[in-house]
């Protein structure tokens, strides 16, 4: 399941839905990304997420399909917000449910690493110095690289 939305989400309820009615699920793993309060040594006032709607859905569906092809998963979930957010706000939730613990954990880890380098979202932070687009980080590329099947 994929959702791209401006609104916040309820993590507990979303995780519950993921295993609801499937009693073969032994574990649910998730990652929640939050807006931090500092950009280097500058306090963040707002963070705005822009995205490419037609491509976002496609990219997230591909990421989800890739996870399901690699691990035996009962269900997966990606929720990503766009628009203006404040420090402490939730940005993204990825989750994977599986009969098997390691599959759920690895798949959720994969989902967020892959999303970070493949989903067409861009962050713009506003600090007292003005607005600035967030630079992509080589550590995110390295994290995604680990999942490339040789």
């Amino acid at each position: 399941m994929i959702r791209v939305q401006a609104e916040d989400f309820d993590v507990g309820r979303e995780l519950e839905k993921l295993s609801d009615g499937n009693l073969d699920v032994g574990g649910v793993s998730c990652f929640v990304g939050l807006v931090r309060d500092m950009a280097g040594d500058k306090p963040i006032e707002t963070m705005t997420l822009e995205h490419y709607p037609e491509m976002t859905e496609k990219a997230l569906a591909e990421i989800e399909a890739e996870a399901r092809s690699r691990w035996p998963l009962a269900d997966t979930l990606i929720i990503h917000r766009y628009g203006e957010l404040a420090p402490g706000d939730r940005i993204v939730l990825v989750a994977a449910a599986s009969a098997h613990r390691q599959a759920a954990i690895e798949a959720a880890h994969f989902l967020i690493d892959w999303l970070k380098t493949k989903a067409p979202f861009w962050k713009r932070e506003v600090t007292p110095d003005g607005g600035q687009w967030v630079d992509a980080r080589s550590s995110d590329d390295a994290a995604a690289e680990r999942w490339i099947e040789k």
Partner: protein
Amino acid sequence: MKLLYFAWLREKAGLSQEDVTPPDTVATVADLIEWQIGRGGGYTEAFSDEAMVRVAVNQEYVGVDHPVAAGDEIAFFPPVTGG
């Protein structure tokens, strides 16, 4: 073809989308970027650091060798920073 711009590429280009008809010699993404640089002003600035430009043709990531044609939706944007 329909061109889309996101993030600082949108800001530099000065618009979020437009319909263009480049000359027939523009056959690939690389040709299109070269043509954009030649348009001057914000376009030249937006595409000046090619290493920072990512391209999607019809919502799929492509390399600079990928062909472009009338009717394509071609998006230009910096490396993504979601999640």
